[in-house]
């Protein structure tokens, strides 16, 4: 699975304004709402579900990366967005580090395989130092969009 299969380009946020966990999730879900991927009346429910998942254990998986996510019947296919925080946000990460890179995912309840393949793609790309560093240095959504496109073309593999 490639980034272009699940990342909504219009929802990419290069300079997140939020400085805490709840607000970051809010901002990213809002980006999907503005992009037309979710409906306004589902926003609160989706945010609550993502926060509930975080209570089971932070999705801050280390290296300054977090993958907040939930299943929700409001989406027909896996949708996601990318957000970058220049300063980093305290996300109760497993390694205690602040999080700069966010990949927020919402998947239909009956498609666990797609969610797994998205996580596989994200983790494989982020293992590469170059991709990780460039993403953290991105300051515009166009920078991020190009970076994801290059990653999809496997220019950072190895």
């Amino acid at each position, binding site marked *: 699975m490639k980034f272009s299969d699940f990342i909504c380009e219009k929802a990419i946020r290069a300079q997140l304004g939020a400085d805490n966990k709840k607000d970051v999730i809010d901002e990213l879900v809002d980006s999907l709402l503005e992009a037309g991927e979710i409906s306004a009346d589902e926003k609160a429910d989706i945010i609550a579900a993502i926060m509930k998942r975080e209570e*089971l*254990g932070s*999705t801050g*998986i*280390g*290296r300054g*990366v977090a*993958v907040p*996510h939930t299943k929700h019947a409001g989406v027909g296919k896996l949708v996601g967005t990318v957000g970058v925080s220049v300063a980093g946000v305290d996300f109760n990460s*497993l390694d205690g580090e602040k999080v700069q890179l966010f990949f927020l995912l919402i998947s239909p309840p009956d498609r*666990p*395989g797609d*969610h*797994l*393949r998205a*996580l*596989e793609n*994200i*983790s*494989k790309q*982020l*293992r590469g130092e170059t991709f990780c560093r460039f993403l953290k240095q991105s300051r515009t959504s166009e920078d991020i969009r190009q970076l994801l496109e290059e990653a999809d073309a496997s220019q950072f593999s190895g």
Partner: protein
Amino acid sequence: MSSTAITRTVVVRNPNGLHARPADMLVREANRHQSEIMLEKDGTRADCKSILSLLTLGAACGTEMSLIAEGADAEQAAAMIVELFENGFHELE
């Protein structure tokens, strides 16, 4: 001190596969042991002490993998991790 490598076959049993939460549980268990603990799927190896590494496996329900533990406490480490897989990471109904 001789270090012994132990190999076991594990199967992902929980319907949602090896997603972030099971990977987190696996890392926590692996970190209780000194041994090097790896999972191998189709020739790709992942370090059981790194969640990012485990997620690269994209191991869905039904996936069979080799668990390789090497070190002084390899036997116990392998047994505990096999149990996690058998219990479906506590996600079985």
